[in-house]
């Protein structure tokens, strides 16, 4: 299945600025571990397995009176990464909330493994991790308790200890979260991704408040996740060293005369 392991951004309507993007996309390089993705792709596309593709068709998003973006299409296969860029307030977070099913698209639809997500969001929600710009941390709980709780709210095995280690939080694992710095809180939020596995990561400014060590850990996590067939959508305005990632400039889908 050629083209199954890359992510393309297709301008749905010709004539929209986005058209120029399609030529400028970096060519996705084949990666080691390719056979993982290919093996998974053999299964039926109706199964909600690792090989399922996340497809957005002609998405538009409205917040109140304002049309944030329109005509946005994307396709995310196993191992793909998509970096969403744009100015503050351009709709990066709205796109991620929309992909997380927290916002309903004004037009267009989302498909997971060929099935419309809007019809039955539960199977899709079970395979995504949404990391918003808020950390979902209670000051009175410890990082370990926080991870145990959030991992317990999901299906599948929990690896709380591994997650704390992966983000370098071992030392503070049993402190109350109110003692954590902004960067440590971000690390704890990222640790949720490791504590319970999910093939689709939707990350809103994942590197916010992280130091260089934290950024390094984040990039490592993302590569390991993609090598195992996972996929990532990250909204960021910091340059993150995610290799062979497609980029989506959300400004290209902003209706003329708005924003």
């Amino acid at each position, binding site marked *: 299945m050629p083209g199954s392991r890359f992510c393309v951004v297709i301008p749905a309507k010709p004539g929209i600025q986005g058209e120029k993007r399609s030529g400028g996309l970096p060519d996705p390089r084949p990666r080691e571990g390719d056979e993982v993705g290919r093996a998974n792709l053999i299964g039926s596309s109706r199964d909600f397995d690792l090989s399922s593709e996340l497809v957005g068709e002609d998405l538009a998003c409205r917040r109140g009176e304002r049309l944030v973006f329109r005509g946005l299409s994307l396709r995310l296969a196993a191992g793909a990464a998509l970096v969403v860029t744009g100015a503050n307030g351009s709709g990066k977070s709205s796109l991620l909330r929309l992909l*997380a*099913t*927290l*916002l*309903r698209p004004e037009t267009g639809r989302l498909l997971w493994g060929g099935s419309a997500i809007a019809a039955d969001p*539960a199977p899709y*929600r*079970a395979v*995504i991790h*949404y990391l*918003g*710009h*808020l*950390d*979902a*941390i*209670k000051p*009175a*709980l410890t990082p370990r*308790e926080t991870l145990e*709780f*959030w991992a*317990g*709210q*999901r*299906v599948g095995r929990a690896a709380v200890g591994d997650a704390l280690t992966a983000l370098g939080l071992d030392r503070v694992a049993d402190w109350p979260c109110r003692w954590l710095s902004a960067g440590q809180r971000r690390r704890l939020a990222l640790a949720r991704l490791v504590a319970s596995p999910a093939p689709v990561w939707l990350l809103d400014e994942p590197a916010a408040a992280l130091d260089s060590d934290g950024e390094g850990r984040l990039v490592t996590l993302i590569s390991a996740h993609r090598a195992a067939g996972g996929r990532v959508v990250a909204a960021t305005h910091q340059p993150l060293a995610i290799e062979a990632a497609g980029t989506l400039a959300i400004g290209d889908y902003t209706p003329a005369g708005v924003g």
Partner: protein
Amino acid sequence: MAGFFALVRRDLCLAWRQGGEIGLAVGFFVLAVVLFPFGVGPEPELLRRVSAGIIWVAALLAAVSSLDRLFAADHADGGLDLIALSPLPLEVAVLAKCLAHWLTTGLALTIVSPALAVIVDMASADMPVLVLGLLLGTPALTLIGAIGAALTLGARRPGVLSALLVLPLYLPPLIFGAGAVEAGMGGGGARAHLLLLGAFSLGALVLAPIAAAAALRDALE
């Protein structure tokens, strides 16, 4: 189901560790009741006649004052997004949060109510009806309150607004709860009031999570 109990356990743990949470509702309840004898005068006859009403009104106000902690913290720190995305249906998650809220307010108020009944000079024979009434009625206060708390998420003064929304809906438990004690004073006529109180709570148990979850989904948009 594990998710349900984990959510209840976490909310109880938070209420416990953040100290004040339980103490605030109970303290508010106690103070409101204690203020009444100062206002209406210490005549035992008068106090006894209005005692059930005083305790029930104070319980309603204490319940309303504690509503903002149902969803506001989870909404503010982004936890509500994750709860909405978890496999646990949002209606069930609302039920879990209501259970934790009831255990830390409704049940706590019920437990201290006999002591307050003494302050307003209620006859000891009437206390079982009062306690039973609170036990049956306070779940409805939490459940209906959850609708108000969910509807006012993101509003500028959520506490005041949800009180305005919710207090009129608290009329049936107030009427039947206080009425049960008064009917009981006549000699064992409290049964009908208590049954209606229980019926109201059961109705709220079915309908309130659905309404509150719908309001929460709207708030997350």
